[in-house]
């Protein structure tokens, strides 16, 4: 197969909120940028974000970034890096105002300022009372944000490669990153995109689980590409299960519902969160609420004929508030749960939602990995932002509304860093001769493979193993068995067959390539979870129910080659303020 080559200053892979925020800054700075996306930019999964974006504007209740920082550190169960967290919380008001200036249709207060609602884990005065920190456009904040950023990129003339799928990273023998290989989905054409800077903004990988709030395209491609190129993945055992996925369908019901006054009840109609988090109740951190729900269900207080879910009650808010503040939720509830939330409660279960781990970076978006001298050496030419990156601001558990914030803050910062780095480095390094070898071999295998299992079959097996062995509560025997089984699934994934060999818009091929990435993520998650013998944030071990700061206050690094784990320290020192000391986490 002949492959063409094009050269850019920067290749951005991903046109969700983070990729587009970065692209905007770089296009405006006059760099030659190519932005690749598997889907038209506004179809990226940022579009599904509902509840809001966190910033201590203090428009409704008094607030400041120190409190936001404290909540984020505490929410992370102290695994978050405090330098990055300070950086993010301080920059939050500025990036939100910027977004408003870009045209974001935020809801407004009577005084004309941006509307803010309460959200889980966001408190006043270092954890005392809930604060209104989530800046919202109804319950369509992600949609409004993504379209606004796309619109600004249209204005800035950003060069989008729509429906192009990046296949693999190009690294030379020094370990420097020199671009990606990618395939145009419409034609099947493969191309090398050679660049001085490569920024991954490929989003999450919720599709490793069977019950997920994530879109079909959330297959962890950036992580798969990085892992195949020898970059470790950080803190992959920490996967967030959102308390309120619609029972059966998995579609998300935002925490904003509880922010507006909704609450959870068990089969006895009891508002059970009062027992688990007497202070924050239904607005405790997500890991806390999900575990409480799983416990209620396990102990026989679940609802429905099988007792396998609980109910989210919001009818007391009244039809008006629901139609006005939560119109999207009303729509989802009618369509996917067949209930009018103004009349009856919505059946919900904890559902796989957000990947706290990812490609390790510093707070400038530069990818850092153990290489020659230390655990956090910058990988030249490689950057990552958004859900695919692990900065780490979310540590062991992300607070709601901190992800959209993360996209904007680090999208913008990575762009600034790239502009600075490129000024110092005007000449691209030459491509290695084997630049496209790996992806071409993967494609050739799919072209020639005549027999084997289907991609759907192997994908189902993977999702089943992850769901059964690596869920809200994790058990030692199930994890050990999970490691074994996921390894077997990985072998099966190398022998999948697709019957469709066409070059034109071949989605069977795309799904087969995505499965390679999903498997990398699933393996990293299972191995990291089996190794971590403590409970922290989104990782809850039945056999080690407590957090263990002596042994486990450290980040995991999973290397795909050799299925090996290593660890690095947490950055406990913020940039300008005092560290928040380790404390037990109560809400």
């Amino acid at each position, binding site marked *: 197969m002949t492959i063409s080559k094009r050269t850019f200053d920067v290749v951005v892979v991903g046109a969700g909120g983070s990729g587009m925020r970065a692209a905007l800054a770089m296009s405006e700075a006059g760099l030659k940028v190519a932005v690749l996306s598997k*889907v*038209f930019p*506004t*179809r*990226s*999964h940022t*579009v*599904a974000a509902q509840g809001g974006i966190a910033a201590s*504007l203090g428009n409704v209740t008094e607030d400041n970034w120190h409190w936001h920082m404290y909540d984020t550190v505490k929410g992370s169960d102290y695994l978050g890096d405090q330098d990055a967290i300070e950086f993010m919380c301080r920059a939050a*008001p500025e990036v*939100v*105002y*910027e977004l*408003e*200036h*870009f*045209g974001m*249709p*935020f*809801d*407004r207060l*009577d005084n*004309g*300022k*941006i509307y803010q609602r309460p959200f889980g884990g966001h408190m006043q005065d270092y954890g005392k009372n809930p604060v209104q920190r989530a800046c919202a*456009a109804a319950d*369509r904040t992600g*949609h*409004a944000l993504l*379209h*606004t950023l796309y*619109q*600004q990129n*249209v*204005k800035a003339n950003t060069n989008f490669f729509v429906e192009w799928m990046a296949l693999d990273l190009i690294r030379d023998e020094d370990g420097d990153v020199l671009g990606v290989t990618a395939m145009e989905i*419409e034609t099947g054409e493969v191309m090398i995109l050679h660049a001085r800077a490569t920024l991954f903004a490929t989003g999450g990988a919720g599709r490793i689980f069977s019950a997920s709030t994530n*879109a*079909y*395209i959330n297959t962890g491609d950036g992580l798969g590409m990085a892992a195949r190129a020898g970059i470790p993945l950080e803190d992959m055992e920490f996967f967030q299960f959102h308390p309120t996925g619609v029972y*059966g369908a998995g*579609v998300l019901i935002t925490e904003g519902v509880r922010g507006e006054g909704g609450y959870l009840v068990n089969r006895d109609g009891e508002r059970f969160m009062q027992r688990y988090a007497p202070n924050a109740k239904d607005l405790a951190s997500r890991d806390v609420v999900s575990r409480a729900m799983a416990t209620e269900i396990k102990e026989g207080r679940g609802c429905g004929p099988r007792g396998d879910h609980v109910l989210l009650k919001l009818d007391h808010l009244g039809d008006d508030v629901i139609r006005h503040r939560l119109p*999207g939720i009303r*729509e*989802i509830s009618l*369509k*996917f749960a*067949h209930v009018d939330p103004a009349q009856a409660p919505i059946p919900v279960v904890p559902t796989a939602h957000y990947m706290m781990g990812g490609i390790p970076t510093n707070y400038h978006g530069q990818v850092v990995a153990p290489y020659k001298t230390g655990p956090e050496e910058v990988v030249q030419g490689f950057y990552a932002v958004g859900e695919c990156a692990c900065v780490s601001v979310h540590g062991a558990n992300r607070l709601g509304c901190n992800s959209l914030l993360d996209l904007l803050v680090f999208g913008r910062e990575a762009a600034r860093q790239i502009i600075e780095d490129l000024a110092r480095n005007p000449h691209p390094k030459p491509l290695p001769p084997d630049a496209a070898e790996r992806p071409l071999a993967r494609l050739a295998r799919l072209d020639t493979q005549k027999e084997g299992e*289907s*991609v*759907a079959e192997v994908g189902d097996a993977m999702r089943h193993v992850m769901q059964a062995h690596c869920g809200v509560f994790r058990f030692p025997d199930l994890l050990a068995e999970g490691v074994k089984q996921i390894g077997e699934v990985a072998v099966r994934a190398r022998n999948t067959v*697709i*019957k*469709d060999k*066409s*070059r*034109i*818009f*071949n*989605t*069977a091929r795309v799904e087969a390539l995505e499965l390679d990435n999903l498997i990398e993520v699933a393996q990293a998650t299972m191995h990291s979870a089996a190794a971590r013998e403590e409970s922290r944030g989104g990782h809850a071990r039945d056999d080690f129910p407590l957090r263990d700061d002596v042994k486990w206050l450290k980040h995991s690094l999973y290397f795909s080659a050799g299925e090996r784990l290593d660890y690095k320290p947490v950055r406990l020192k913020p940039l300008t303020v005092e560290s928040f000391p380790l404390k037990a986490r109560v809400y």
Partner: protein
Amino acid sequence: MKFRIYRYNPETDDAPYMQDYDLSIDAGDKMLLDAILLIKEQDDSLSLRKSCREGVCGSDAMNINGRNGLACITQLSELKQPIELRPLPGLPVIRDLVVDMTQFFKQYHSIKPYLVNNDPPPETERLQSVTARAELDGLYECILCGCCTTACPSFWWNPDKFVGPAGLLQAYRFLADTRDQATAERLDNLEDPYRLFRCHSIMNCVDVCPKELNPTRAIAKIKDMMVKRIV
């Protein structure tokens, strides 16, 4: 359940054809997209776009029993069999249910779909009243699925000249935003026998919009602004 699905792969087929599929599935509360994906498990050569599976990304617009809609939020049990699926009408077909949306997006881009405000931005947010913000409801929620524009006869006849309901809805979204300063340019941009005035209020667009938006009303409001500007 019985399905008839439009098939066309330019690499192997001389002409498009309809293929029958029989799927044993209990419609229950499943969506059409769930069924299509089960068919795709049997025949992986069937191509379509999909992503969010909850009606917010706009990927899986198609013609379902003669009417444009999103497969992911179309209840299977409500469809008459055989369920006939075709690509969105009026756009070139790339393959099967996948259409080339270039023309659709070109029209969207032609209305300058971004806020224009040349004042230096304030330190904090620009203020906007609750009522001024409410003007944007029913406009900003568009997911660019293309259901409306590809149901519009005026767009079928003049895809290169008529902006189409989706683009015009967004044109009005910016005209209606109190923070935008480009009203005159925006109206100039539409002052032409085709771009805006080809709409004959046939209302197909309103009928099919899966987000229950109303492009016809937005178009009427733009026409209104045009008239007011003359007098």
